[in-house]
């Protein structure tokens, strides 16, 4: 089976700032891929570039075999039925003066499908995300964070897309409702056969929703593999630091924390050699060389001093 999404060497710069320095990954149909990274890693730019909302100066993005990097908005428009996005700010991504009904049926209007019974579609979509039917008349400011998120999911599913790109789907949600959203996404994915790319810095979320994950640092993937493999045996020191930085809800937990030194370097002055070198607890002289991406048994790694 060919991948539903294939990204190769994606590069994006905003002026002099090189945000994405060559990102490559692939998503199989029905798979959930998590792109993990911290602020400044470029993870939001990755999905925006894929969706054509951010520029991509070089590289290839193939959706269902078709090249979409750099195509015109006109050429992209029909594909927007198949690629749906969910944004980080749950209420902020909803047009404030539209009712929920109009918000979830907006994709139909945009694609010119006005002959459909939009009221019925709205009902169907609200049911899909477990929102009571009377929510159709509400406005975004009348919704809680969790409810607004679900409206975003409903909207994303309106035209039965093949691929969902979700930017921090659980950000801003209380812990007690995060599970609800993740369960919903998992369920929908199973029922509708969706493929998903999830951007997050929350490793706990990744564990429960992603099949495979990639760790992004400074606009480049440093490690990639199945979620289990990465959690059980992280090989890149950065991955290891990220995983150990998770405080556990147990006051007696003895934490083997690997401290990361300093802050991520400025994107204007990328370090020479391995870009993680200056903060890496395992750095040595060999790291002055530029590490290359190597794949072994489906596990990708860019490191000269792996664990």
């Amino acid at each position, binding site marked *: 089976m060919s991948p539903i999404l294939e990204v190769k060497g994606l590069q994006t710069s905003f002026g002099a700032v090189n945000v994405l320095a060559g990102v490559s990954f692939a998503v199989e149909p029905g798979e959930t891929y998590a792109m993990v990274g911290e602020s400044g890693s470029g993870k939001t730019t990755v999905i925006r570039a894929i969706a054509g909302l951010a520029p991509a100066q070089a590289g290839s993005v193939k959706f269902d075999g078709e090249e979409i990097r750099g195509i015109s908005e006109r050429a992209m428009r029909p594909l927007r039925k198949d690629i749906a996005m969910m944004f980080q700010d749950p209420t902020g991504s909803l047009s404030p003066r539209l009712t929920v009904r109009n918000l979830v049926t907006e994709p139909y209007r945009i694609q010119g499908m006005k002959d459909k019974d939009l009221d019925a579609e709205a009902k169907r979509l609200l049911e899909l995300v477990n929102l009571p039917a009377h929510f159709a008349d509400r406005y975004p400011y009348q919704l*809680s964070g969790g409810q607004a998120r679900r409206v975003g999911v409903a909207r994303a599913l309106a035209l039965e897309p093949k691929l969902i790109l979700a930017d921090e789907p659980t950000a801003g949600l209380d812990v007690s409702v*995060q*599970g609800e959203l993740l*369960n919903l996404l998992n369920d929908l994915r199973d029922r509708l056969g969706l493929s998903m790319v999830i951007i997050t810095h929350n490793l706990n979320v990744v564990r429960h929703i992603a099949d495979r994950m990639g760790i992004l640092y400074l606009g480049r993937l440093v490690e990639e593999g199945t979620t289990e493999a990465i959690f059980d045996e992280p090989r890149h020191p950065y991955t290891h630091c990220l995983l150990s930085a998770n*405080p*556990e*809800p147990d006051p007696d937990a003895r934490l083997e924390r690997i401290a990361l030194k300093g802050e991520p370097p400025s994107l204007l002055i990328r370090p020479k050699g391995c870009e993680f070198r200056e903060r890496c607890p395992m750095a040595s002289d060999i790291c002055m060389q530029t590490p290359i991406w190597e794949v072994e048994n489906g596990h990708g790694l860019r490191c000269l001093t792996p664990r």
Partner: protein
Amino acid sequence: MSDTLLEIDNLSVDYETARGDLKALRDISFDVKKGEIVGIVGESGCGKSTLISSILRLTAPNTRFRQGEVRFKGDDLLTMPERQMRNLRGSDISIIFQDPMQTHNPVLSIGRQMVDIQHRTKVSKSEKRSIAAKMLAAVGIPDPEARLKQYPHEFSGGMRQRIAIAMALMSEPDLLIADEPTTALDATLEVQIIERLQELQREFHCAILFISHHLGVIAELCDRVVVMYAGAVVESGDVREIFHDPKHPYTRRLIECDPGHIKERARVLPTIPGEVPDLANLPDGCIFRDRCEQATDRCAQVPPLEKLKEGHFAACWLNHPEESST
């Protein structure tokens, strides 16, 4: 001399709105001892913002203090004259916010702001600058002298938060209120901030009131924990007691739902179904009743916050088995 620094005593606060009174805080009681780190755990709508603004007396015009006292070193802050309150704020009681940009004035340099904060001390300007530089070093900002000239936007989010901590601790407050200081930060930065706070707390001996909905951080940092839900305290106690032997269903469910706690990939994650009740239209009885799996008929009556053992309080009928068995 009492050990207690801050005492919240039966505090009830409403907001008057067009829809009716929003009962944001109902009968809140807990205290903070000198040098202690107390965590307030609560999700959206639990009342923590109202609590903080009540302690600092920086409340919205439609706030109504219905009952209770907020005693700081024995004095009730709610009846204190504004001039005295102003002297306390920023010197005896300091605060850091979730969004560091709220603390910093974007058009003034960091150095200028840190010098301004010291307006009550009677030392020279250059003295104040060197104190500011020392504080920046204490929070791990490299090259502090040079950095004093820079503006907030020239720093990353993590650094801005550290500067906010430096500014808050400069006056050596007795009480530091930290309102979700790490919620907006990545995990690795969060860890750095927490460790820094721990070091500084040991050095300055201030008490910290740490508000967060991130259970892992609370578990790591705090000595005692107060769990709030929809405007009420449902449980409070020693951090070990709360995490290892929670006595309120909400606390139990909250710990269960925290994904950090679930090691294996779960098909279906636990969640607390339902929504937080409308504070203008409170249900009868226990506030958590509608979402609680263990609710019984007794819960139609509001359970009082009872002392279960030394230092551990909970508001739940399940802790009081009835004389006649059900």
